[in-house]
């Protein structure tokens, strides 16, 4: 790809195992929502695989696309240096070891799930995590407060799902083209 011509020294350095190891490190260090700062630290600061601006651009592409943002990020960084195999190596680095840990913890959970104390601890954690999801949604909503059209579509989506219990697929399929059309019209009118 393009970068190969620009910086051959970096490309030679970023082997499949380096991609695997880099994303493994980010995954293992990134506890509880700290994945983003660790991914940035590994990719931008430690290994210098991307510049600050390039990382920010790539991340916003990954956040814009559906799915697990960090899996998408692993695919971008991996494929940038080593094509499809690089994408697979980075993806496996991100998921394989933590997934093994998750399965071990999950097996342990099945042994102790009936203890009241375990139930309380897990109840506390899921309450806190649900709170974080709500806080993130609220932050996204308040960042749009200058855009009444965006707020209107947020309200429509919310009432479609919560009040009328329509399937999410239907709500997205119905509202996404309309909201894209609305912002296109606004852009044209400018």
């Amino acid at each position: 790809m393009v970068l190969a011509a620009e910086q051959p020294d970096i490309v030679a350095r970023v082997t499949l195992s380096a991609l695997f190891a880099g994303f493994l490190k980010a995954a293992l260090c990134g506890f509880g929502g700290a994945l983003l700062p660790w991914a940035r630290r590994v990719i931008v600061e430690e290994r210098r695989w991307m510049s600050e601006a390039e990382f920010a651009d790539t991340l916003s592409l990954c956040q814009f696309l559906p799915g697990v943002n960090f899996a998408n990020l692993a695919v971008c960084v991996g494929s940038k240096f080593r094509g499809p195999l690089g994408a697979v190596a980075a993806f496996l680095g991100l998921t394989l070891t933590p997934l093994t840990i998750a399965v071990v913890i999950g097996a342990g959970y099945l042994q102790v799930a009936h203890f009241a104390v375990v139930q309380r601890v897990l109840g506390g954690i899921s309450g806190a995590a649900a709170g974080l999801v709500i806080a993130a949604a609220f932050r996204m909503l308040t960042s749009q407060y200058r855009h009444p059209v965006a707020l209107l579509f947020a309200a429509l989506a919310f009432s479609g799902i919560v009040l009328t219990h329509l399937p999410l697929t239907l709500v997205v399929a119905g509202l996404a083209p309309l909201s894209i059309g609305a912002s296109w019209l606004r852009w044209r009118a400018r």
Partner: protein
Amino acid sequence: MVKVAGAVSDVSGSSLTFSAHLAGLSVISFGGIPVILPELHQLIVVTHGWVSDAEFSDFFALSQIVPGPNFVFMLSLIGWKVGGAFGAIGAALGVTGPPCALTFFGFRLWHRFMTRRGG
């Protein structure tokens, strides 16, 4: 499809159903997996009864204390309950596969566009 007799076909059939549903929902998860969480609850707990209500929130909590991309793990844990290791891997691939494929091709297009513009 070839029909295999016995309990094994039930379990692997459920695993396939689960990861096919995940693959479908993953494509509309703009903003991340929390967006499709209510839909997942409906699918997993209400429609299919693969795990109980309490287990669903326990798996949510458990995945939060594991390092790495949490929601992949939450769905893998549920996949494990649905169909063992096959179910867990199927869930992880189902929920990440389609968006990662989109990203792979999207990133190439985007990269080409950016370099052509000279930026």
